């Protein structure tokens, strides 16, 4: 069973529907016991970092996330879920985050006034190193993004894929042990996104 963590951060329907399409049992839950009993954990989210962190504290889920990662449970962060696993985000005037991945989250600051923020739409990802979640996925495949901030891992070894936008080249996929996280939305990235999700549902958490 895949636990989709519900911390009141956006709409989880599309993640659930994508897993159902793949024939994978899943549950949307806030319950730490159910999350820790799951074979795999998806940590999605849309919205802003400060409110996400507030909700995680209120729901007492920060320790749950850390425990899941410490136990090497295959863990997939998506979009805002990916951002809040870092140490710190520049969003909301600066927000300390969950600290599961060393690094920060920065705002796009293009010099070009015509560059639109957020990035909304399909962009390519250059694969930086092999990973079980990339099986069957070609270099420079396109994924669906919607975000104004981007991950900047402290350790370049954690960068799995890179994407360019707004004069920045940023980590669009990061990984460390059983933890993998994407800035894009695999559940909304068509056949190729579903392939990444399917790879996740078969991944044992090792690289």
């Amino acid at each position, binding site marked *: 069973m895949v636990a989709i963590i519900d911390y009141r951060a956006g709409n989880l329907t*599309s993640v659930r*529907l994508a897993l*159902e399409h793949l024939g994978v049992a899943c549950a949307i839950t806030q319950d730490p016991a159910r999350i820790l009993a799951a074979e795999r954990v998806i940590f999605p989210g849309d*919205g802003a970092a400060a409110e996400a962190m507030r909700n995680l504290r209120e729901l007492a889920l920060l320790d749950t996330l850390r425990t899941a990662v410490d136990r090497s449970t295959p863990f997939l962060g998506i979009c805002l879920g990916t951002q809040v696993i870092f140490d710190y985000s520049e969003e909301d005037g600066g927000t300390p985050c969950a600290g599961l991945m060393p690094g920060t989250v920065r705002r796009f600051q293009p010099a070009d006034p015509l560059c*639109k*923020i957020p*990035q*909304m*739409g*399909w962009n390519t990802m250059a694969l930086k190193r092999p990973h079980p979640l990339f099986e069957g996925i070609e270099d420079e495949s396109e994924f669906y993004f919607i975000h104004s901030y981007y991950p900047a891992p402290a350790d370049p070894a954690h960068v799995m894929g890179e994407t360019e936008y707004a004069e920045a080249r940023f980590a669009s996929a990061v990984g460390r042990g059983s933890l993998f996280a994407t800035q894009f939305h695999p559940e909304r990235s068509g056949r190729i996104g579903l392939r990444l999700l399917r790879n996740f549902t078969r991944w044992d958490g090792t690289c």
Partner: protein
Amino acid sequence: MLTKRIIPCLDVRNRKVTKGVRFQGNVDLGDPIEMAVAYSDGGCDELVFYDITASAEHRPIDIEMVRAVARVVHIPFAVGGGIRDLGDMRRALLAGAEKVSVNSLAVHNPQIIADGARVFGSQCIVLGMDPVWVGVSESFPSGYEVTTRGFRERTGMDALQWAKRAEALGVGEIVVNSVDADGTRAGFELNLTRLISTQVHIPVVASGGAGTPQHLVDVFQQGKADAAIVASMIHTGEYTIARIKAELARAGVPVRRKW
């Protein structure tokens, strides 16, 4: 590089996709779910569904249709028509839509944009607007007036000022549908698209007038659109998404080529 999005628009009436010219003389074209799957498999980047009779019939958007689409399509899609309040927004998003589009509702109650953005996030809230050329005047500095209800109702609002106000209220994206160009297949209204796209900082989707791949090249290169809506030119089978994208790529417009 971020690619330019091609978005088929499915106007739905009685669970059938329909298409008219300047909002009139509609004919039925097919089943919305089947068409959504075909376009998604065919390489479109996003979809938009308008429940075009919901408002007139004073009923909410067809949620069962939204659910059915979300089960089979795994790319983003927006829904509009029959969104009356936050409750309707919530139901559409929970049914699996990525975004909800408001048009007349926002004209009559702009606060709905701010409320929707606060509750669901800006990325979910799309403003649709139907501007018509009225000539530059003191009341309409951009020369375009916002209309609602399929050009039946004038609002007295300047299109560019409305776009900027909606951006300030927190809308995540603006669909600019030219009343003058809608359904004509004679090309997008480039002037209008560029005017709005270069003066707001959020994505602008051009709508109305797509008839040939060159029209799309023009709306991206000259109109500075971030995305464009296509309808008749693909609904009739005259063009495929793949062919449109091949021609865009040839002209140097970045588009998604693998799906």
